[in-house]
């Protein structure tokens, strides 16, 4: 499959309106405005586009659920991109921002919204300035604003800057944050489609999801569904990082295998190293082992293999990696990012991190392993949002596949890898 979403990102000025227009930009919006809003939703449904933010929920269905009886309605674009290992929305917004702007406008037209808010993480300030410039250009050329291209359709797009909170990526926490409150999730139902931003019907969509919408309109549903396996159609961005020679964002159909991504696109592990494990979908999904990589990197195939595609953040780990340290590193993240609303998650992530720290430094006991499992099982499924399940996954998955490493730490009262295993990693040598 030839890249579509990031085909031109390495060309100079790919982020400008002139460049975008020279490559067929905003034609999809023109096409969309000749159709009825319902037809747009039908097209997105027929394309089978699944949300790229993590859960893989069909976007057309989400848009159909938006309550059309109540007004105003909103598109809220989730550009919080904070899942460790994920950096695809970053590239899209920085190098192809007009694609997102066009996607927002078409989305608004489809669900009958007049405003799209793009909630971008606070750290992406350099990206935000690119995006805001693109929005200004779009207004100046009449692709946003009043009576767009003479169609009578009005649409405003605003960028809203977050301020450092992973949990703001959870859709209802994002809405709370956008309303000027702490980024803590709401109870569901009601879902955002019924009562979202300001209690009004809203569609929360990931950046990459919205970027796929103009592609569906310009290339057609038939083309779109022909790319990749059934129910996993369309171009997909994969973020490969960690112990690989050539990390980066790669675009492929979901027929690509994990092995092709790791060994082909990303150049495999460094010379003299062997592959130890792969996290296929961001820090919160179960680990896959090297012999499990000959599967399609699709939502369904990875789920069947016992993990999740999540945000398509593929973190590659070679034989120099200590798995107890890895769990400890990720639990530091979850402990720090827990929003504090539910007790099991707020307290439990801190406990897990403390226990992992003490095992890693050689002060653990065998019964700590049961304690880890016990605490994890008291978090998973017992919290308001999916964060709880996500947070315990690094613990449970490393315990499942690498229990011997935990036991060795406890038995030998130290990390069994050379003490300087991280210090000896080549720095930025890729």
């Amino acid at each position, binding site marked *: 499959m030839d890249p579509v979403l990031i085909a031109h990102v390495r060309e100079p000025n790919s982020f400008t309106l002139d460049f975008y227009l020279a490559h067929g930009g905003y034609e999809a919006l023109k096409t969309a405005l000749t159709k009825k809003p319902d037809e747009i939703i039908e097209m997105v449904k027929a394309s089978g586009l699944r949300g790229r933010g993590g859960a893989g929920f069909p976007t057309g269905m989400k848009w159909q659920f938006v309550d059309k009886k109540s007004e105003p309605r909103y598109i809220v674009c989730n550009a919080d991109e904070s899942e460790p290992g994920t950096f695809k929305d*970053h590239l899209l917004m920085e190098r192809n921002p007009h694609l997102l702007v066009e996607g927002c406008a078409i989305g608004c037209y489809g669900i009958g919204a007049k405003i799209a808010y793009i909630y971008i993480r606070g750290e992406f300030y350099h990206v935000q300035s690119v995006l805001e410039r693109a929005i200004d250009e779009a207004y100046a050329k009449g692709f946003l604003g009043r009576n767009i291209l003479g169609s009578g359709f009005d649409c405003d797009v605003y960028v809203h800057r977050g301020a450092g909170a992973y949990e703001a990526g959870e859709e209802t926490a994002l809405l709370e944050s956008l309303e000027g409150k702490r980024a803590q999730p709401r109870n569901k139902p009601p879902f955002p489609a019924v009562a979202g931003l300001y209690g009004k019907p809203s569609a929360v969509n990931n950046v990459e999801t919205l970027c796929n919408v103009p592609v569906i309109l310009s290339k057609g549903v038939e083309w779109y569904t022909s790319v990749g396996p059934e129910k996993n159609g369309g171009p997909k961005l994969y973020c490969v990082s960690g112990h690989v*020679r050539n990390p980066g964002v790669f675009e492929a159909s979901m027929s690509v295998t994990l092995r092709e991504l790791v060994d082909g696109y990303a150049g495999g592990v460094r010379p003299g190293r062997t592959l130890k494990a792969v996290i296929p979908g961001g820090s919160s999904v179960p680990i896959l082992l090297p012999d499990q990589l000959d599967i399609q990197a699709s939502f369904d195939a990875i789920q069947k293999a016992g993990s999740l595609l999540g945000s398509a953040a593929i*973190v590659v780990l070679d034989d120099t990696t200590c798995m107890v340290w890895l769990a400890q590193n990720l639990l530091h993240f979850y402990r720090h990012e827990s929003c504090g609303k539910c007790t099991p998650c707020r307290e439990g992530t801190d406990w897990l991190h403390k226990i992992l720290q003490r095992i890693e430094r050689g002060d653990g006991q065998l019964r700590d392993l049961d304690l880890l499992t016990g605490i994890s099982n008291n978090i998973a499924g017992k919290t308001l949002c999916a964060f709880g399940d996500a947070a315990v996954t690094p613990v449970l998955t490393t315990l499942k596949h690498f229990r011997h490493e935990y036991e060795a730490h406890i038995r030998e009262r130290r990390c069994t890898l050379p003490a300087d295993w991280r210090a000896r990693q080549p720095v930025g040598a890729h």
Partner: protein
Amino acid sequence: MSFHPEMAYDATFHKSARQLEEEGPAFGYTAENRARFEEIVKRYPPERRRSAVLPALYLAQHQQGYITANAIRHVAELLGITRADVEDVVSYYTMFYTKPVGRFVVNVCRTLSCAINGAERVTEAICTKLAVRPGETDASGTFTVLEVECLGACDRAPVVMVNDAWHENLQPEAAAKLIDDLRARGEAALSGCHHVVERRKDERTGD
């Protein structure tokens, strides 16, 4: 007290912890920031001014360097919400500082992909150079070093964000030099540090 027989309940940082901000000097937006604020508020429905609390706090932080109780009061008044509403937000989001920070806040990513690509050595190089530990401000008051979680550029690990500017694929030696450059040239040393995407491939040295 503790909720778990095995685990101590201590008072380490948590987002749910209540923090009281310093009173600070009297605070009001400059005319320029006030005008900027009025522009931003228009993006939200008139009865939803509260939505502008994050941008309003960013303006205050840019003006004063950090958020004080007086700044909170000012923002609350302009938005028509209570001080507690604003305090709640300030204490939750990590990008607002409630204590004075250096002119340069050096944020080193510490999460998985960066950590296994040498981020710890970058932190060490910077901290040694400045004689501080992560979380501290150096003696001159110019630099604050923070360890932060995944910045969303893991393919260019290790990643360091200085104020709003990014440095990527940063070698420990280069990190130490960056501190010297910032001392010598100020903000000018930050320009152009974010790799230009067109060039990214060429700059990779391979193995």
